[in-house]
C-alpha cells in the first residue's frame, strides 16, 4: 500500500522532515532550547489559521508567524530572556489559535488538522517545498555546525577574536522556525515536536560522540516515522498520535538509565 501513489507522496514529504527534525533537535538540545520546537509549532499553527482567515496561503501564514517568533526570541536572547520568550510565545500562539478556531467556522476543521497532523492530505507542492527546505537546512547545518557548538561551549570564542557570530545564531533561529512551520503543516504540532524532542534525547543518552549522536537521532527519527506511517495505514488510524506513541516507546529505555537523561 505504501508504494501506491496516493501514499508514496505523503510518505516522502514526511521522510525529509523525519531526517531534518531530529537533526535540528540535536542542536536545540545542545543549546538547551528544545522548548523552542513546541513554541514554533504552536505559533506556526496559529499563523496558518490567521492566513486562512484572510485567504492567504496557509504555509505562508505559518512561516511568517514562526519567523516572527524567531525574531522575538533572538532579540530576547540578547538580554538572556529566551526561556521566558518561549513561554510567552507558546501561550500567545495557543490563545490566538483557539480564538481563531472559536470565531471562524471554517477554521475549526483546519485547527484539528494542524494539531493532529494532515500528512495524508499533503500534495506535491508540500513535497517539493519539504525536499528543498530540507536540502537548504542540511547545507546550513553542515556549514555552521562548528560555530553553533563553539558558541554554546565557549561563548567568548568569537567575540575574543573579533569575529561576528550573529549570522549563525540568527540563521539557526530562522531555520528552526521555518522547519517547524513546514512540519506543522504536514505532521501536526505534536508530531513535529515529538520528532524534534525524542530522537535526540534517546540518542544522546547512549552516543559516545557528537557525530554518533547525530547519526543515531536521524536513524531513530526515520525508523519511528516509518513505523508510525505503516502502523497508521495498517490500522486506519490518524498519523500524529501513532507517531507520538511510537516515539514514547522509543523514549522508554533512557528513562531507566541513570546517566545522560537530563
Amino acid at each position: 500500500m505504501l508504494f501506491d501513489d496516493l501514499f508514496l507522496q505523503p510518505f516522502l514529504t514526511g521522510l525529509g522532515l523525519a531526517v531534518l527534525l531530529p537533526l535540528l533537535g540535536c542542536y536545540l538540545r545542545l543549546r538547551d532550547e528544545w522548548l523552542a520546537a513546541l513554541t514554533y509549532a504552536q505559533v506556526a499553527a496559529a499563523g496558518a489559521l490567521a492566513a486562512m482567515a484572510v485567504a492567504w496561503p496557509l504555509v505562508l501564514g505559518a512561516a511568517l508567524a514562526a519567523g516572527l517568533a524567531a525574531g522575538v526570541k533572538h532579540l530576547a536572547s540578547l538580554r538572556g530572556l529566551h526561556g521566558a520568550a518561549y513561554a510567552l510565545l507558546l501561550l500567545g500562539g495557543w490563545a490566538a489559535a483557539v480564538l481563531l478556531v472559536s470565531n471562524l467556522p471554517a477554521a475549526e476543521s483546519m485547527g484539528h488538522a494542524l494539531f493532529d497532523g494532515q500528512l495524508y492530505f499533503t500534495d506535491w507542492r508540500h513535497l517539493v517545498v519539504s525536499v528543498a527546505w530540507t536540502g537548504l537546512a542540511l547545507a546550513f547545518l553542515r556549514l555552521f555546525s562548528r560555530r553553533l557548538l563553539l558558541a554554546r561551549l565557549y561563548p567568548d570564542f568569537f567575540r575574543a577574536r573579533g569575529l561576528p557570530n550573529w549570522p549563525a545564531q540568527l540563521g539557526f533561529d530562522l531555520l528552526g522556525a521555518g522547519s517547524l512551520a513546514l512540519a506543522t503543516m504536514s505532521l501536526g504540532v505534536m508530531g513535529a515536536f515529538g520528532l524534534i524532542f525524542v530522537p535526540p534525547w534517546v540518542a544522546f543518552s547512549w552516543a559516545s560522540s557528537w557525530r554518533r549522536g547525530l547519526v543515531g537521532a536521524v536513524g531513530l527519527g526515520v525508523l519511528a516515522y516509518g513505523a508510525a506511517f505503516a502502523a497508521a495505514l495498517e490500522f486506519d488510524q490518524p498519523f500524529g498520535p501513532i507517531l507520538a506513541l511510537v516515539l514514547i516507546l522509543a523514549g522508554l529505555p533512557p528513562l531507566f538509565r541513570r546517566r545522560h537523561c537530563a
Partner: protein
Amino acid sequence: METLLTAERLTAGWKRPVVGPLDFALGRGEVVGLLGPNGAGKSTVLAALAGRARVFSGRLGKRPGLSIALQTQAALPADGIPLSGRELLALTGAAATGLPDWLGDRLGQRYDELSGGQRQYLSLWAILDAPADLVLLDEPTNNLDRAGSEHLAGALRTRAEHGAGVLLVSHDRDFVARVCDRVVLLAGLEN
C-alpha cells in the same frame, strides 16, 4: 619583542567600574600573572581584554589583527551532550599532542563522563592550545591536582616559547611565581 597588548590607565567593569586605573604591557613570548585579593577585579580585566566587560576610561591598545583565546572559570555546559574529548579539541583547533597520558588516553570518551579534574584540564587545553596570539587564563589551576598543575606549568612555558603571549589570573602564588615572567598586582578600584 613585539608588543601584543598595552593598557594605560585602564578602568574596566560591568555596570560600573570595578578595577583600575591599571597600566601594563604584554609582549609575544611572555607569561604575565595578575595577582590580587578576591574582588580586586582580576577576572574583569580578562573580560575587558576579550571584549565582554566595559572599558570606562583609559586606553587599551591591541596589535592589529590580534587573535585572543579566553578561558573562564565557568564550567562547559556539556552535561548530557555526547561530545568526545577528541571532538572538543577539534572544535577549537587544539591538538592532542602534548596532553598528559592520564588525559590523552581518554580522548575517545564523552566529555561528561570524565572526572572533574580531567574535564577542567581538557576544557583548559582546548583554549590553551587553540591557534591564538594571546591566551587569557582565569584561575586555570582550579580543580587540578599536583600532576595537573605541573603539566600546566610546562605547557604554558612551551606556549610562550612558541610565540604566544599569556596573561594569567590566579590566586595560587606559588604557581604564578614558578611560571610567570612578570607579575601585575591589582589592588581594586582607586577612588
